[in-house]
């Protein structure tokens, strides 16, 4: 043994998109690779980030933008983070309170299922509230560096709302979202599964949009490690990545969803009803209490059929969202540092089957300019709301 370790501690947040990691451990894929993994459930992204950075965790289920922020040293110490595996894409939804939904229906011109129409309707409500001197609308999301934040902002701005001036965006721990919606602290939120469904089932909210309505293929969660760990112990990282590739293939088969849901439902994992979890895995969600179902096979993508391979397009796109919303100022080397977080080479090394060049799926937003990773200045210039380079 040359410094290779087989005991790992990995942190995660109780969300359905941790499925591949949880299955890799609980279903024995990690053990088959000679790894003894202890999964540690955490209560906040700040904890996951800090414990990963300082070495309490060897790896973590992490918001992709947090990994990049850590690599860039935004809002926190700079610890280069790398991802050998893309744990999840999409999976979020925007849920609004029943009163806000009723108002949106009243003022909407078009179909509320169309995010352009809903964003314009929301802008109209924001204007009316501004005129009457009412408090601004408040929306919850999970972390400043999160796709949820960027999804909400992108959607609102497309309707003409400046998310920093016209509404309030607040961070709420996902388990508090439902209560905050029912007691009126927030009027809506963007969060991952299973929290939207729980709000619908408790009849306090209605799912207005799936994340895929805003972006067809949005980066979401990574399997994140310290770069120093990846460098010092490549064989362990390869074993861990292989376990994830195998687990993702297992999770990706519809026939296994029931078993995966049962694993995730355990109280020390996600700890919610298995049926709700299975619906999420199937991409079949109840959007309203009256039972209206909506199905979308891309609702949540969990790294199967090659999607686990980190795609640097995601890194550049996330960096562009950070630029747009003023979380980072454009400077030399930052884009490269963001890209280095996404390590397809580690994935390929683990796969051991040559390079798996995969054509990037375009992120495809419902409105606005198409994303061009070679010209961020022009991309950002095309938005009327948000910072430019």
């Amino acid at each position: 043994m040359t410094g290779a370790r087989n005991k790992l501690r990995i942190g995660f947040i109780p969300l359905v998109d941790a499925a591949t990691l949880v299955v890799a451990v609980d279903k024995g894929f990690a053990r088959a690779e000679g790894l003894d993994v202890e999964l540690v459930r955490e209560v906040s992204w700040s904890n996951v980030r800090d414990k990963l950075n300082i070495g309490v965790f060897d790896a973590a289920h992490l918001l992709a933008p947090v990994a990049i922020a850590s690599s860039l040293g935004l809002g926190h110490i700079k610890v280069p983070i790398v991802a050998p595996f893309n744990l999840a894409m999409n999976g979020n939804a925007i849920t609004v309170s029943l009163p806000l939904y009723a108002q949106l229906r009243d003022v909407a011109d078009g179909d509320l299922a169309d995010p352009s129409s809903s964003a314009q309707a929301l802008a109209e409500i924001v204007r009316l509230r501004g005129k009457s001197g009412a408090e601004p609308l408040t929306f919850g999301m999970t972390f400043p560096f999160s796709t949820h934040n960027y999804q909400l902002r992108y959607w609102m701005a497309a309707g003409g709302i400046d998310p920093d001036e016209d509404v309030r965006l607040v961070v709420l721990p996902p388990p508090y979202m439902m209560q905050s919606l029912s007691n009126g602290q927030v009027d809506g939120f963007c969060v991952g599964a299973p929290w939207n469904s729980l709000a619908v089932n408790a009849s306090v909210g209605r799912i207005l949009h799936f994340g895929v309505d805003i972006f067809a293929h949005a980066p979401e969660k990574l399997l994140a490690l310290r770069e120093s760990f990846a460098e010092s112990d490549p064989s362990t990282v390869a074993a861990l990545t292989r376990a994830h590739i195998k687990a993702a293939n297992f999770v990706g088969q519809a026939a296994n969803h029931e078993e995966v849901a049962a694993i995730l439902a355990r109280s020390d994992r996600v700890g919610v009803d298995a049926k709700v979890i299975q619906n999420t895995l199937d991409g079949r969600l109840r959007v309203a209490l009256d039972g209206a179902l909506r199905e979308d096979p891309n609702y949540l993508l969990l790294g199967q059929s090659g999607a686990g391979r980190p795609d640097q397009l995601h890194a550049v796109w996330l960096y562009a969202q950070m630029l747009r919303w003023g979380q980072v100022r454009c400077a030399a080397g930052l884009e490269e540092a963001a890209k280095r977080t996404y390590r397809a080479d580690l994935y390929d090394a683990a796969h051991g089957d040559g390079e798996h060049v995969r054509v990037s799926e375009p992120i495809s937003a419902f409105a606005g300019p198409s994303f061009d990773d070679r010209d961020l200045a022009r991309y950002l210039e095309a938005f009327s709301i948000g910072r430019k380079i």
Partner: protein
Amino acid sequence: MKIVIVDESPIRAAILEEGLRDAGFMTVERLSDMNNLLMRIQAIDPDVILIDLENPSRDTLEQMFQVSRAVRRPVAMFVDQSDAASIRASIDAGVSAYIVDGLKKERVKSILDLCVSRFNAFSRLQNELERAKTDLEDRKTLDRAKGVLMKSKGLTEDEAYRLMRGAAMRENKKIADIAHAILTAAELLK
């Protein structure tokens, strides 16, 4: 120096507050209600904010500090990486600190060290309490199992105890586990 403690455990917060006062930090406020956290922190305008790591509101706090124009922006202690050992110690103890810029490092370190020792003292206390509870329950189980044996086999209390102890030694189990097994069996055989 004004210090705010955000902790959902009132006992631990009180222990920490007492320690801080003993060390000469007189302005210490405890917040346990997570509603209107920012408003209350604004009103207090602290130099140091201490938060327990089991608190899911930590993410909320962190965003508030990033966007708020109203509070002086506290930064996480991690921003200064100079003392990795004490940061590690605080994470292990389960507490995190946010500090307003410009505060002298030595002063912060003394607060942090105090937090760590008080948090650790609290978990020791909790463990002891937990153990005392288990001991008490074990003793009750033992007494009941003794009663079962005395009645069904006509033994004295001492003989019943020795019988269980012998079984525990033979099977390499705790005597409380043997007592549990006896009670379960007695229940089934009723």
